[in-house]
């Protein structure tokens, strides 16, 4: 942990060497998700509700997914950029150091320009939390936190899977975008609006709905069972196969060197 903090401050120092570029990129990040927010606003002001959810309720989805994703991207960027680490031989360096490979990949890159998006998610929360019609109790506040934190961890798991795939293919990686970028962009609405099949997929295979749709039902008192409050924790199971897959990739790398 101490080591991680050290890496954290090193990355901070490095990025602050290029302040102008840093802030421009941050603003760019902000704008990109702002365009999505704007399109969401246009749609909701035209239709008022979608599947019975109001604008402010949809915003809770948007903000929790955006914040979760951006946290994962900011701190787990090493996995996102892992193909590059493999390509330039930096990964060999990680293997000759006496620390766990996962920790080193994690620490290899952090991207603070993602704060632009995190900030936006925070603003949206400030706007939507009081207006969403949710009666906020301690349990519900906890649920909202779980949505963000577990969401972040599941997206992080997806980055690990992405990195693991890069042990096997470089060109074919683009298909993972539908789960990472797609998960973020389509997560602006409750995942249930995409239909039964997609919801099942996002419940049992890549559990994005477990930290978004089901706890939202709990927040809105549509489902009163405490089980729905804790579904985000259930989604963390995804990290296990993700981790195992990455380790499998490392083993393959160590026997083939590529």
């Amino acid at each position, binding site marked *: 942990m*101490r*080591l991680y903090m*050290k*890496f954290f401050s*090193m990355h901070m*120092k*490095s990025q602050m*060497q*290029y302040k102008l570029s840093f802030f421009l990129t941050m603003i760019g990040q902000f704008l990109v998700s702002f365009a999505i927010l704007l399109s969401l606003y246009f749609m909701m002001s035209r239709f008022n509700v979608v599947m019975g959810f109001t604008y402010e309720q949809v915003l809770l989805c948007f903000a929790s997914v955006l914040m979760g994703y951006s946290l994962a991207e900011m701190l787990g960027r090493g996995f996102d950029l892992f193909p590059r680490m493999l390509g*330039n*031989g*930096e990964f*060999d*360096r990680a*293997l*000759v*150091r*006496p*620390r*766990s490979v996962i920790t080193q990949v994690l620490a290899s890159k952090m991207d603070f320009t993602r704060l632009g998006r995190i900030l936006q998610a925070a603003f949206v929360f400030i706007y939507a939390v009081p207006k969403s019609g949710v009666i906020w109790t301690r349990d519900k506040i906890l649920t909202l936190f779980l949505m963000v934190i577990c969401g972040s961890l599941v997206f992080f798991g997806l980055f690990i899977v992405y990195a693991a795939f890069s042990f096997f293919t470089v060109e074919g990686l683009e298909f993972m975008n539908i789960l990472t970028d797609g998960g973020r962009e389509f997560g602006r609405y409750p995942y249930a609006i995409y239909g039964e099949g997609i919801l099942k997929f996002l419940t049992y295979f890549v559990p994005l709905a477990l930290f978004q749709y089901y706890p939202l039902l709990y927040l809105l008192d549509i489902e009163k069972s405490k089980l729905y409050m804790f579904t985000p924790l259930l989604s963390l199971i995804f990290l296990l196969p993700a981790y195992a897959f990455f380790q499998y990739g490392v083993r393959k790398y*160590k*026997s*083939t*060197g590529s």
Partner: protein
Amino acid sequence: MIKLENINKTFRVAKRQGGFARAVKALFSREYEIIHALNNVSFTINDGEMVGYIGPNGAGKSTTIKIMCGILTPDNGICEIDGRTPWLERVAHVQHIGVVFGQRSQLWWDVPVVDSFELIKDIYKVDSSLYQTNLDELTELLDLSELLKTPTRSLSLGQRMRCEIAASLLHSPKILFLDEPTIGLDAVSKIAVRQFIKKINAERKTTVILTTHDMQDIEALTERILLIGKGKILLDGNLAELKKHSSERKTLIVEYTGKAPTISEGMTVSEAKDGRLIIVLDPTQLSVSEAISQLAAQSDLIDVSVTGVSSEEMVAALYEEYSI
């Protein structure tokens, strides 16, 4: 101590084929080629030795280094370094080795060198007093005091290499792997880096294993040479043995006055003009000093010069001899 016994390593490489039809076919079924990167490689290196590991590109140098570093797992064979098998006990093993990859930096580009050092200290869990002693010692040895506060991006290549070497020694490794440490450096920096490597080996008793394409590195640094070609160790000896091994001929250029000397066995005249002879000498039949004294006994010599084949030509000849 480093001990390798009968290490084998094969790679399966997908065949690349030209042509659209073949490329489409390759999407479904690929043909593979088996490459024997290492073939029964065995050697032992004692503590404190300095060894030059040479061979042409693709001969298996970096595969061997990667196995010794724990990056690669061999197909079979034994590799024991200080009693550990690198790929089985990676973390424990790498705590005791230092690695410098000549073309890749382990220093952070945008922050002062000393900050990178501090991070390395934490990565290797070096305790503060040891770190301080090592840092002071290395600063003096490698003449770093001016460089520590500079960000890596502002260092010259030679300065950077000195910092890289220091960085890989902060945790007092017993073994140092240097992969092409002088690549891309200018002549002055090369000499400096060589001196530092020599000093480190002498003063810190660190075992040094170095791969290089630069024969001057070998001449300046190592007593012992391992020559690898096509995955096999071809030669394990010192520079002199290497030289003896190569069919090395010397050229004598002799200027004299008066009567021309008669030439004995072992020498052949390749050119003869007034007062000047160019003689090719086979040192296995006749040594250089003997040849000169024979010549001097017969004629009045004004000038004698002896040129040998350079180490580079020698190694090139050797590669040819083994057809690698």
